[in-house]
């Protein structure tokens, strides 16, 4: 059992810190203390990954598997959580008095995500997903008093709940036929001959499971909630949602995919291809003339998930993990870092006002002339999202391309190229907006005093770190590549 604890050290640390934080709030509210505790929790958990790495892979109960893969994603999740925590301080300062629960919810949500990436069983999958989700609902609605966050939260809660229900019902159907709930077990059972009438149940179940997962990943046509929730949620939370929630779910999906050997089923692969193509095209088209920055990023995330799905389909073609998993993990890491950077910058821009976020494209008009550094960093983040070289986004795209070509998935690649072509427009539109001379003295300009955006040392550190990571991994990706190449699943 001792190694069991060691194997789950990081989640345990997070849980313990969450408990401490809860008690601190109960005894005496103090924003800085809570913030410090949140930071400590994340940092300790990251440190805890080291002893975990020594003993992996290690199965802890049939539900959770600590391996290199889950460690890597845990690290990403904790890193995202830490970044969000760091940024939240400035962001929340001007908003309302009681911020303490925010950090608690972040910790819980991250805990859910970590469980999700270790899940090898429907039960742990369900637990992780819901822990992640329920904390997020609260996070979305929590910091502000406006209507938009509330609407976003309730939409997310209900739709996400419905998606969970669909997913569960799907699993229930599969369980009814196969009699097992562990991923590996499902895979093994699926290879046995299945009665004709039960195949319908399997099919229905699979469709429902993928509907649920597709919703959480905002795959077309289950994507509709995404822009509303992204827009309504406070920026740091949006960032967290975009990175941690999406990343963890995809990581879990990948594990399910491999453990249950779903990649063998051509029908499923073909259906996923259709969804991927639809996501790439629809996501990018939806973002095309969008004026709200958060919505743009939401739509772009839909497209990115479409790109990411290419790796799954490649897996199906190649029938072996090698390049596909490497591509998926790299792309996901790249996307997480880049999104974090983008949302961090948006969060900084919105830090100095107390009500809504400055998320309309007109708000950042002329940013280049007032805050060249900030504008340049946002430009780099956007270029990384667009997959322009020297940024990590390009290497990610390079991986997708390579994987796609290895699998000869020409149709998907065509969609990828068309989608990327379209995406250039809306990314550059933001860049162009920042370079425009005269802020049209309307909506945003009034709210945004040219000198109001003051970067605290903390924010500076965070964005510089993220930009550095984006560029470093874009220029010298070899180390990460090697590491990801060695991840076993």
């Amino acid at each position: 059992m001792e190694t069991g604890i060691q194997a789950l050290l990081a989640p345990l640390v997070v849980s313990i810190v969450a408990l401490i934080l809860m008690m601190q709030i109960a005894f005496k509210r103090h924003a800085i203390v809570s913030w410090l505790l949140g930071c400590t929790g994340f940092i300790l958990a990251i440190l805890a990954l080291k002893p975990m790495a020594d003993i992996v892979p290690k199965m802890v109960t049939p539900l959770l598997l600590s391996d290199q893969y889950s460690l890597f994603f845990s690290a990403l999740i904790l890193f995202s959580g830490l970044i969000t925590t760091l940024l939240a301080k400035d962001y929340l300062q001007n908003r309302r008095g009681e911020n303490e629960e925010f950090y608690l919810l972040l910790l819980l949500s991250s805990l859910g995500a970590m469980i999700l990436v270790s899940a090898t069983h429907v039960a742990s999958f369900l637990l992780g997903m819901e822990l992640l989700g329920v904390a997020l609902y609260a996070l979305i609605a929590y910091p502000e008093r406006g209507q938009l966050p509330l609407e976003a939260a309730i939409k997310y809660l209900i739709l996400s709940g419905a998606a969970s229900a669909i997913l569960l019902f799907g699993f229930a159907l599969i369980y009814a036929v196969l009699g097992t709930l562990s991923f590996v077990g499902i895979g093994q059972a699926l290879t046995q001959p299945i009665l004709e009438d039960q195949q319908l149940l399997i099919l229905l179940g699979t469709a429902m499971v993928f509907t649920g997962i597709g919703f959480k990943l905002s795959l077309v046509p289950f994507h509709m909630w995404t822009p509303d929730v992204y827009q309504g949620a406070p920026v740091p939370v949006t960032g967290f949602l975009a990175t941690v929630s999406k990343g963890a779910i995809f990581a879990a999906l990948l594990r399910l995919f491999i453990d249950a050997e779903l990649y063998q089923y051509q029908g499923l692969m073909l259906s996923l291809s259709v969804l991927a193509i639809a996501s790439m095209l629809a996501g990018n088209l939806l973002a095309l003339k969008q004026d709200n920055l958060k919505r743009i990023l939401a739509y772009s995330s839909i497209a990115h998930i479409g790109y990411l799905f290419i790796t799954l389909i490649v897996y199906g073609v190649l029938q072996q993990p090698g390049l596909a998993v490497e591509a998926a993990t790299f792309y996901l890491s790249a996307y997480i870092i880049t999104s974090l950077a983008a949302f961090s910058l948006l969060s900084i821009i919105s830090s100095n006002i107390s009500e809504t976020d400055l998320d309309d494209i007109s708000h950042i008009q002329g940013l280049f002339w007032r805050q060249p550094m900030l504008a340049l960093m946002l430009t780099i983040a956007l270029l990384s999202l667009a997959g322009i070289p020297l940024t990590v986004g390009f290497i990610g795209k390079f991986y997708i391309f390579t994987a796609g070509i290895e699998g000869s998935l020409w149709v998907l690649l065509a969609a990828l190229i068309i989608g990327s072509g379209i995406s250039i427009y809306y990314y550059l539109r933001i860049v162009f907006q920042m370079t425009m001379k005269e802020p049209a003295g309307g909506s945003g300009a009034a709210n945004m005093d040219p000198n109001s955006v003051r970067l605290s040392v903390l924010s500076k550190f965070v964005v510089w770190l993220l930009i550095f990571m984006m560029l470093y991994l874009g220029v010298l990706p070899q180390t990460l590549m090697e590491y990801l190449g060695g991840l076993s699943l």
Partner: protein
Amino acid sequence: MLLLNLILILLVGGAIAWWSERLGTHWPRLVAVFVVLVDLLYLLNYLAGIPIEQLSVVPAASDPSSWLLAYQLDWIPRFGISFHLAMDGLSLVLVLLTLVLGVISIISSWNEKNDRQGFFQANILWTLAGVIGVFLAMDLFLFFLFWEVMLVPMYLLIAIWGHEGKAYASMKFFIFTQFSGLLMLLAILALAILHHSATGVYSFSYFDLLSTPVENGMAHWLMLGFFIAFVVKLPGFPFHTWLPDAHTQAPTAGSVILAGILLKTGAYGLIRFTVPLFPEAALDFAPIAMFLGIAGVIYGAVLAFSQTDFKRLVAYSSVSHMGFVLLGVFAWNSLALQGAVMQMVAHGFSTAALFMIAGALQQRLHTRDMREMGGLWHHMPRMGAVALFFALASLGMPGVGNFVAEFLVLLGLFAVNPWMTAAAALGLITAAVYSLIMMQRAFYGKPKADLVVADFGWLEMNAMAIMIIALIWLGLYPQPVLDMVQPVLDSLFSVVSSNSITVGAQ
């Protein structure tokens, strides 16, 4: 190491130029000129040091060490990607062109009142760095990287310091090049993966990929991937429509770099990659490519004639001129290729100069509309005379480099296809039509009575003089350039010859 330094000097110089903004608004341009000059002298210093015979050594296609210079560093071994730069005669010519025009482009913006001078100059220097990288990169991954990276500062130049229609123009420029770039990326990766499946190792090295066997049907597609990317940049008909907008809206320095240098990367790519990597496919495709070349020559000239915007006219003339390059490359013999290279260099100077003139006109008259010009010779005889020279250069007047280029291209093409040559030769007539109408509309005709404008000043005349001398030198004694390029062509021929029929005088 020298090659790396060439790029690093510009990159770091760009950062310094940006920073120097704090010292005063005139500092960045001084720094920028200084940086490019240092780079140029650095290269010339090397050139002075090598024995002249070395320039005539035919570089082996399989062995970069036989090149003038090579520099290799492991970069991403996971995919066999290395930081591999190498220079042969062709790259040398183009790098020199880049640096000279770099100096000129900075001078051309000397008197423009641009905000954020520092960032402006930084972008110019970074664009130059990217272009030089493109000319030197011998690893296809690295090549693509530079290919894309040079777009970004160029985009910013247009988007930030451009004219009234900059939003549309900069976006169009970026999307065209980026979209076609993705096709090239696809082709590069597919080629590398084919190499991987044939040999078991990943490699993006030009030298390795040259020998990669590609099954014929596949080769056609991959060739197209490269071809489209390069032809968009060239620009070739019908992918040229980004160019008139981008050129017109870019600030003067941007136009100079765009027309003078950036377009050449497309031509360079065609010569260096498209044909040698897929000789058979390229040969099959040659008639279509040449047809596009002819279409570009004629179409560009016809549209240039009808423009009322001075810069647009010059932009369309670029389309026309670069059509000759396309013809030259796909005729694929010594004469035509020499002509194509010569056209790259000569067009670089002549168009850069015309854009500078356009910029000077805009700065003085606050319009580019030729309907509002006329009789400017009276007010600015020096500018008029210079414009006349470059108009004549652009119509292919013998004695300047453009003539040598076009003549060689057509001469080489004639051996391949006389009828196409005849069609392309129509471009000589149409070039006369648009060049002269440009002179007429802007500089001849009735002078405006109350116009007070300054003629070209000392600095501008010096820049012009450099380009005039260069063009006349190329027109009367192009041999040094031809000699530098010939060994490279011989080497490329030997790569291609095993698979395709080479025609003409080699």
